């Protein structure tokens, strides 16, 4: 019989075998003046309190602030919303609060 096992163990990879593409971050802006800043509310209770204050401060700094909101904090932001933010904003702040 030529069915003898060798000692070497070969395992099957249980993972998704994905290689994650790394993307470089855009450079940090010198100033927010004149830039469009998106504020993403994840829809968690009282997150708006924090974001309201951020909007005030950013507007004072001359940023053009736009507000966005996820339908629910329990799920990732819908792709259309992500696209909209990416299209309109140079900077985005996502606020988590509890």
């Amino acid at each position, binding site marked *: *019989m*030529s*069915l003898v*096992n060798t*000692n*070497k*163990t*070969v*395992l*099957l*990879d*249980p*993972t*998704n*075998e*994905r290689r994650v593409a790394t993307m470089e971050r855009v450079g940090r802006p010198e100033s927010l003046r004149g830039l469009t800043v998106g504020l993403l509310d994840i*829809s968690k209770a009282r997150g708006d309190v924090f974001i309201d204050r951020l909007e005030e401060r950013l507007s004072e700094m001359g940023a053009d602030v736009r507000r966005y909101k996820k*339908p*629910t*904090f*329990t*799920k*990732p932001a819908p792709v259309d919303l992500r696209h909209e933010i990416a299209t309109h904003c140079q900077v985005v702040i996502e606020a988590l609060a*509890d």
Partner: protein
Amino acid sequence: MNDVSSPVLPDGLVIVVKRECETCRMVVPVIAQLRDSGANVSLYVQDDPTFPDGMDVVHDSDLSVSWHHDIETVPTVMRVKNGVEVERTVGWVRDEWERVTAVSGLGPELPAFRPGCGSLSVDPDLVDQLRVRFGGSVLGARRVDVADLEDEFEAMFDRGWTDGLPVVPPTEQRVMRMLQGTTRAPSDVVAVVPPDLVEVTVEKIAINAVMAGCKPEYLPWVIAGVEAVCNDTFNIHGVLATTMPVGPVIVCNGPGTRAIGMNSGMNVFGQGNRANLTIGRAIQLVIRNVGGGRPGEVDRATHGNPGKISFCFAEDEIGSPWTSLATSRGVAPDTDSLTVFPGEGPRCVVDQLARDPESLTNTFAACLRTLHNPKSVLAFDAIVVMGPEHARVYADAGWDRDRVLEELHARLQIPGDDLVRGAHGIAEGIPERLRGVTLPKFRPGGILLVHAGGGAGLFSAIIGGWANGEVGSQPVTKTVTK
């Protein structure tokens, strides 16, 4: 590379034998008789190429002829025409041999009939190796070599493949054997697994099922479980990512739960039952390894709970006075299915004195009222796992499933005055504007009733849920098919 090509049989008569088989040894004179008659006989021997003594044979040393031509019994006699088998007989049945070989008067000194023996190619000690050797190329997963001096269990920990407990090494042999548990092709895509949103195939599920310790017959349950959690309704992404201590709780229904030996009775949530523990574990390993959902990364649980390794059990349908959870969720009776629920660990409901359903229901309502916070309403669902001794109180009184749930909901209507922020010295609560409004603790359908547990003990259990409805997670029921 494995040799998966199917060997072509020579035309004429093909006979497969092994020396170890007494019937094969008995028919040696018949084979000689056939050859003497001028028949074109190709003789394949599985074990010993010197058998039969002095005869011209082909040694099926790697059993590829036997495997590819589905030889289950030796001796097997086939008639082959233009490379295609046209007739076959197994064992020794004189009439059959004479029909297939078209030679009469065979083995006149032999009995008319004698059963054959098992072919080496179906020997339980060899079949897994052969399946890999001749079928291994159906598997697409990357092969990971473990060095001779490396401990494979430690290697799997090092690669981050485990849930903190050792896992069974997913070798090709084990994965191929696991795949025997389903009729689905290994390359079938079952679901897209959060949080990395990666397609998972039957093969990858089988690999993780091996690691979890599943038997092949559990695989359809694992596949159904993966389907059940990986969708927007159950929202495993959120269940995983939340800081709350929840994970998928899997309630299994149907005759298949008994066929695979699941526990629905004594110590139903506890240790000791392979099917319960490994099915739930395999689903969690798929989330971890394929979906990329790992604690400290997307999994942000403050405490978690031990059920996040595995929390899976069967409903005791045989002993239940009620229709099953699955039936209440629209599954036909006697159909295998599972229901997934985003749950925390179970808590015990103790009532050893109630002998009437009203009193017992008051206890359940009082315990359910405290779920997560006595002042939280409508936000969370719950499973009530009714122990048999409690269920008997209801059965004796003639309360069916609907009646039990109706009476529970009726007792869980709470005045807003008790719930507003600050009431009873507790800051947590609902907005002041809801004072004066009566609110239910649970949304309609927010209590799932399951019958399970050991026969002794006036106890039941409550499994609290997570953010419910469309904004969070909803229970999902899937049928289980092989």
